[in-house]
């Protein structure tokens, strides 16, 4: 369930239901920019949300499966298989379900929108293609050039160090998600077209989870309320995770990403055939970057921010203005907005519930990458469940799920931390951004960046080169700051309060 739901923080106490008109807003190609922007932003701010109590209206409850009784952690399941529900069918959920099903566990994958094209850059690193055995046709475009553009329009081509076989794959999320789900299904997972409404443990801590969901299998706009009893739940339902709310996982700061998909004339599209652009500057975003990514047959122009969400429309206009010569004259075919988590939730597992992907908050700073990490965390979580349950023959507990968290943190903490430092150092002000672009001209930097992005392994470089890089970086930063003394700078040090004023600001921007 990867659609935009509610603003985390702004709304938390009641269960929300994404209602039909809103889904339609997101699913349909919009006619005018104005109109579609309004819709997306409204959807984003949760204006059209319908309040509903969990479980209310679920009168025709029907227990689909046998009742599961309270079982202690580690106890044998006496012949039956462990039952796990995965909520959300994006890359995270699909990969969890796939690994679980392969591990011999009875798996249910609940996803509301099977053809959801999530607003997303859609870039996947090379190692994901091998690791998750993705077929070649998933990749629409192979980006081999990345252009970084500084506030003073200095441009640097990153990607000169890439070999013939290396590229950043651009995919359409609806295609990728569908493929991963189909594969999970083939491996034995049961895919349910349903909307997760809530869950409860009727028999105490060690009892089964009863999931309430609306089944849309039959089609139509109104789902049929049903229940499903499982031993364990994995929440892979994205930034507005309901599973996270159910386990009181806490909130995270989030960035808002805004993106317009534009179909541009062929001659202009040709320029973007294997090239992505990244704009930095106070005008396009105070703490992130603006982008032009090539998609299947169009480009996606967008930007994101944490510190000033209310100004997102203005930043988007600035991004369009900065890329004017290259993306002008196109037709806007979609407008999208989506929250992006900034850090993990305080609680990522509780009892027999675990979170993966965006729901857990696994999106990197600086690059804002999340697809690979969602898929990988799903797989690691599932592996921990398979191992902890001895191929589904005994009941795993929270300690088994914590194994996954521990391994995850150990494996990727450094990656996240490095990107966090990069963002804090280089995205804070225009002089720093100038230095960032300047620095990216170095081949060593390019090689290191691409290696760590494409293969997700940090290979320590030559210490001498590192030292040289450090001096260069410090030099660039000093020069940049000397040239713009007193430039505006953002602070990444405090928690960004989800002040209602910000939400009001977004709403005001919608009305304007």
């Amino acid at each position, binding site marked *: 369930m990867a659609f935009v739901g509610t603003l985390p923080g702004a709304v938390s106490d009641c269960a929300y239901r994404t209602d039909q008109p809103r889904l339609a807003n997101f699913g349909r190609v919009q006619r005018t920019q104005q109109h579609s922007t309004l819709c997306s932003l409204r959807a984003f701010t949760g204006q059209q949300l319908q309040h509903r109590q969990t479980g209310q209206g679920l009168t025709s409850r029907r227990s689909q499966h046998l009742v599961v009784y309270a079982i202690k*952690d*580690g*106890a044998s399941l006496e012949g039956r298989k462990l039952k796990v529900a995965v909520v959300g069918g994006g890359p995270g959920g699909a990969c969890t379900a796939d690994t679980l099903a392969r591990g011999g566990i009875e798996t249910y994958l609940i996803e509301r929108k099977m053809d959801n094209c999530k607003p997303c850059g859609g870039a996947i690193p090379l190692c994901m293609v091998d690791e998750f055995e993705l077929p070649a046709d998933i990749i629409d475009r192979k980006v081999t050039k990345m252009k970084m553009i500084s*506030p*003073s*329009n*200095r*441009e640097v081509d990153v990607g000169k160090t890439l070999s013939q076989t290396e590229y950043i794959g651009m995919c359409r999320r609806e295609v990728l998600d569908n493929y991963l789900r189909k594969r999970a299904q083939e491996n034995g997972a049961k895919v349910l077209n349903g909307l997760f409404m809530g869950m409860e443990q009727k028999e105490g801590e060690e009892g089964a989870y009863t999931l309430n969901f609306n089944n849309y299998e039959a089609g139509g706009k109104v789902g049929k309320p049903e229940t499903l009893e499982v031993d364990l739940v994995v929440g892979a339902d994205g930034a507005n995770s309901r599973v996270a709310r159910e386990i009181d996982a806490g909130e*995270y700061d989030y960035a808002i990403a805004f993106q317009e998909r534009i179909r541009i004339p062929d001659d202009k599209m040709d*320029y973007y055939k294997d090239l992505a652009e990244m*704009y930095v*500057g*106070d*005008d*396009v975003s105070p703490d992130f970057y603006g982008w032009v990514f090539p998609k299947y047959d169009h480009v996606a122009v967008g930007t994101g921010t944490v510190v000033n969400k209310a100004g997102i429309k203005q930043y988007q206009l600035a991004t369009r*203005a*900065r*890329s*004017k*010569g*290259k993306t002008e004259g196109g037709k806007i075919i979609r407008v999208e907005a989506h929250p992006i988590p900034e*850090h*993990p*939730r*305080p*609680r*990522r597992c509780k009892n027999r519930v675990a979170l993966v992907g965006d729901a857990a908050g696994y999106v990197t700073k600086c690059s804002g990458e999340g697809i690979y990490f969602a898929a990988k965390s799903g797989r690691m979580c599932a592996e921990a469940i398979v191992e*902890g349950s001895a191929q589904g023959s*005994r009941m*795993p*507990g929270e*300690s*088994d799920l*914590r*194994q996954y968290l*521990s*391994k995850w*943190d*150990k494996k990727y903490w450094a990656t*996240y*931390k490095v990107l*966090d430092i990069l963002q*804090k150092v280089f995205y804070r002000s*225009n002089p720093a951004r*100038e230095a960032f672009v*300047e620095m990216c001209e170095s081949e060593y930097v390019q090689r290191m960046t691409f290696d760590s992005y494409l293969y997700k392994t940090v290979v320590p470089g030559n210490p001498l080169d590192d030292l040289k890089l450090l001096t260069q970086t410090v*030099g*660039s930063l*000093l*020069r*940049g700051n*000397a*040239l*713009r003394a007193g*430039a505006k700078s953002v*602070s*990444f*040090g*405090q*928690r960004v309060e989800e002040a209602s004023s910000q939400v009001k600001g977004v709403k005001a921007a919608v009305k304007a």
Partner: protein
Amino acid sequence: MFNMSLPAQAMSVPQQAGRHTCQPRAVTLRRPLRIRAAAAVDEKPAAAKPAPSQPKAAASAPKLTCQVVDGKFTDYRWENGRWTLSNFENKAGNMDWDAVIDAEMARRKILEDNPIASTNEDPVLFDTAEIPWWAWVRRFHLPEAEKANGRAAMVGYAMAFVVDSLSGAGLVDQQNSFLGKLLLHVVVFAILIFRTTDSIPALKGLLDEATFYDKQWKATWEGQERPVEGEKPSSS
């Protein structure tokens, strides 16, 4: 030493008297001193011919300084995406790097205030690393260093005086003792770190920034025992 092996024809370029006065806020059209023919600008900067002054809105390229015209950055010294360094030489043929720094400062300021579209047709090629390190040091570091040195000397003197009057240990005794050396270092580094009263909140903010993300990550493990790798927790 200052001569950067520039073309000899650069000698004939119009000169700027002393330090260049292209202030960041001076976005207004400067009064053209000499006008070049538009064609000549593209070909050779040295081909600039003295011409009578013309009105500001003259169609034949007036000597524009740091302006955005039709979505393009325009300055008579800015050509093909870079500062033409020959325009910054003084009469003796020495580079006036301060003027280059000033010009680049003004360019960055104006582009920050009026962002312009990036185009493939005229890329920006100027690299600040082209300005030699000593020009940066002379311009930005030396005045700062002067200030810091003066401050360190004053604070050091005052402290030495206080220590002397309290303990009776003279300057030489203080320098010879370990404690005295330590104190000296503390003074020097404190002056380097706390330069202005703004430093304290800024440094605190820096500390917060350095630890904030870690706290967010570690929140999961608060009050929890982290499993040891390879241990089977629920093997009962």
